[in-house]
């Protein structure tokens, strides 16, 4: 009995050690900083494109008017549901003020991207992203979900610690100070959260597809390719290759359902990341969702070691660093 008790205790200690190692091992913020730049560019572009139809999507009398949106939220509350949506854009009545606020928002997104006052602009970027999303109800899609997810987690870690104006200013101010950036626990927590959230996204994307017959009989790829409103490249040649369409359908399901397992394994991770790039560039170029495809690729960068980022961006690449993807495991 005592031996059993000891075995259970050892197992608990081991679990605790793994948990602590997973979440609380300090890491280099290089990858988080790179994700800041790429996600920042995507956020800036996403909001820049709102400028084409700013009043139509964000104004009081837009496609979905603020009156209607407020009415729908009120009715949800009256029906006993709790509603906690919010948006600063909801309260702006003047088109001039709307434009001023929008331009200030774009400046904040740009400051975040280049890493200027990044701790503050990261929080503002997250709040602005959510605020625009809540106002633009009815015109949203997967891109907005990934944008908000990345903005949320970038806010947690020191995303401006490298490749930023903040870093450049700090080094100028402290002349002669070490060029090295400290390892951080918060940076690791942010990266871990992006990794786990990506697993959740792919898992549910896959399992929800399993509710549809076309993902089982293999016709889903054809049905996607034959949707004229989505397509940006003519894929009707797939009609001549039915088995290819079916194979691609099955591959998408297998990839999405098993991503959450295979991405953690050092040997399968490079294969999964290769498939990520192929699949999302395919969606980007064929289904007209360039922004969504790129945002998903940015989220997947969280699985690449900071050593590789530094090797590439700081031109100190070595065969060791190039091999780090396979050898330096996360989790």
């Amino acid at each position, binding site marked *: 009995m005592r031996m059993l008790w000891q075995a259970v205790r050892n197992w608990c200690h081991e679990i605790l050690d793994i948990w602590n190692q997973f979440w609380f091992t300090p890491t280099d913020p290089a990858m988080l900083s790179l994700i800041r730049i790429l996600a920042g560019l995507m956020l800036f572009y996403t909001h820049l494109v709102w400028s084409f139809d700013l009043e139509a*999507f964000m104004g009081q009398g837009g496609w979905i008017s603020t009156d*209607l949106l407020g009415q729908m939220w009120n009715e949800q509350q009256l029906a006993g549901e709790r509603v906690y949506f919010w948006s600063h854009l909801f309260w702006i009545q003047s088109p001039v003020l709307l434009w001023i606020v929008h331009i200030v928002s774009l400046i904040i997104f740009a400051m975040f991207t280049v890493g200027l006052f990044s701790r503050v602009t990261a929080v503002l970027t997250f709040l602005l992203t959510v605020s625009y999303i809540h106002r633009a109800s009815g015109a949203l899609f997967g891109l907005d*979900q990934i944008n908000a997810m990345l903005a949320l987690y970038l806010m947690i870690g020191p995303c401006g610690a490298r490749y930023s104006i903040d870093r450049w200013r700090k080094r100028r101010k402290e002349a002669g100070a070490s*060029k090295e950036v400290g390892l951080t626990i918060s940076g690791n927590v942010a990266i871990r959260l992006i990794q786990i959230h990506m697993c959740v996204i792919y898992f549910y*994307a896959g399992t*929800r597809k399993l509710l549809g017959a076309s993902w089982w009989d293999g016709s889903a790829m054809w049905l996607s390719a034959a949707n004229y409103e989505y397509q940006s490249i003519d894929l009707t040649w797939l009609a001549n290759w039915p088995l290819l369409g079916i194979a691609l359908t099955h591959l998408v399901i297998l990839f999405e359902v098993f991503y959450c397992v295979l991405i953690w394994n050092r040997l399968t991770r490079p294969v999964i990341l290769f498939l990520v790039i192929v699949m999302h560039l395919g969606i980007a170029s064929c289904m007209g969702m360039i922004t969504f495809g790129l945002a998903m690729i940015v989220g997947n960068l969280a699985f690449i070691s900071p050593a590789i980022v*530094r090797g590439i961006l700081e031109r100190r690449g070595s065969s060791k660093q190039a091999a780090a993807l396979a050898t330096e495991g996360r989790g």
Partner: protein
Amino acid sequence: MGKKQSGKNPASAPQSPVPLRRSLRLVISVVLILHLVVVIATPMGIVIPASQLAREIIQYAGPYLQAGNVSHGYAFFAPDPGPGHIIDYELSFPDGHTEQGTIPDLQEHWPRLRYHRHFMLTEQLASLHEDEPLRPADSRYDPEWKQMHDRWTLQNRDFERRATSYGHHLLNTTGASQVEMHLIRHHQASREDILGGGSLQDPKLYETGRVITVTAGERP
């Protein structure tokens, strides 16, 4: 970068932070677990049929989930890739002339993200459009039908309000006095259609659904 550095190799001398106190690690761990429970439960609580447990979690986590836009259903092209939807509209002006337009319009809505935003307007409107559930012989003894019908009534009300809001937006931005909008379902061509020489834009693939007319001065 890195040429001024003297002494130790910078790559080998990163500064590690002071380890966190056990109590702080415990607090952070609890927060992380709660956050991940919300992230994982949300897609299970949104899908139909939904998990009752996940719905309870969503209910309790409502302020955090909604205000922070924390998690979603992630149903990309699920359960099946469906047809596309567009709105063809005709604006009538006080002087008698008319103008036609389409939402989304590939020629007008550039760049692609802008097109996609307009496409989502029609897709999300169409997602609210369903045929009224058929009334059984005696609906008084069919609670399932009543539940479906209540849901349809609410959904149909949302559909009409959204469509009317689109109409008022078109009237306000163009100065037209009336707009007639046709919600059109664009079915996918089958493989056999394409192999037989058809195209994705074959007229037989376009099915006109609801027609909504909005007149200037009507209450939105």
